[in-house]
């Protein structure tokens, strides 16, 4: 049985991934000089988790839809697709960042490593189109643990 697809604007996904990579990098590199920048990691976790459950509040995607797309800065790329695996991947990133945030103060190495891992996976998706979260979604769906 196949789930009907809808049109997903892949430019919005790319802007979202760019936002994740940029935010984590700013927090990671910037915290070498100014530690309070690490607050960007819990903030990013909130942005991703809120955006997963209330897509119209997804900050980076809304930045694309409200600013970048209307001004022609980024061209839309509509693809017949399902939004659920992408939302799942974003939520997973949010959960990892939330766990990273818990570790940032007591064990900064773990917190930073988890946040960096999220940025690496977002970069892999951005650069090569390989979405690890979507593969996990497929495995869970295949085992009947997730339903669209």
């Amino acid at each position, binding site marked *: 049985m196949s789930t009907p697809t809808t049109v997903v604007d892949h430019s919005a996904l790319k802007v979202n991934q760019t936002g994740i990579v940029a935010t984590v990098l700013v927090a990671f590199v910037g915290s070498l000089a100014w530690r309070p920048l690490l607050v960007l990691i819990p903030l990013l976790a909130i942005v991703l988790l809120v955006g997963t459950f209330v897509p119209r509040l997804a900050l980076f995607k809304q930045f694309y839809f409200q600013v970048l797309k209307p001004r022609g800065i980024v061209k839309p790329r509509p693809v017949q697709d399902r939004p659920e695996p992408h939302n799942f991947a974003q939520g997973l990133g949010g959960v990892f960042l939330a766990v990273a945030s818990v570790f940032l103060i007591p064990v900064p190495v773990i917190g930073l*490593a988890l946040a960096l891992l999220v940025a690496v996976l977002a970069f892999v998706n951005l650069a090569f189109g390989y979405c690890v979260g*979507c593969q996990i979604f*497929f495995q869970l*769906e*295949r085992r009947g643990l997730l339903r669209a």
Partner: protein
Amino acid sequence: MSAQLWALAAVGLIVLAAASLENLRSRRARRLVAGATAAPAQEPYILYFTGDSCTVCRTHQEPALTRLGDVRIDKIDAVADRALADRFHVYTLPTTVVMASDGRALHVNYGYAPAPKLERQLAEARGSALSAATA
């Protein structure tokens, strides 16, 4: 060494370990698929495992398959047809299997397979069919 450098080293190790595990997993799956068979056909063909959750299938794999021209492609939903997907150890999407005309699996590609790679594998499949016919 600062926490940032330790974290960088840890992520590097995790990525390396994940890449090695993925490599081992695909080698193991390829070995297991070596004996798998499907229906025979006139010409070599491709089993293309996909699913609704697979974006790379739509954005990369399907255009690559279209570039192959006149080749039979059996598109299979890996979630719906789980038995067939299990027979070919499909653990990632897309997966493409180049089948010989006698129904043997000749090449299995886990993940996106570009058109030139598939063309090479199909040419090999045609060559082996020809040598079997002349032998």
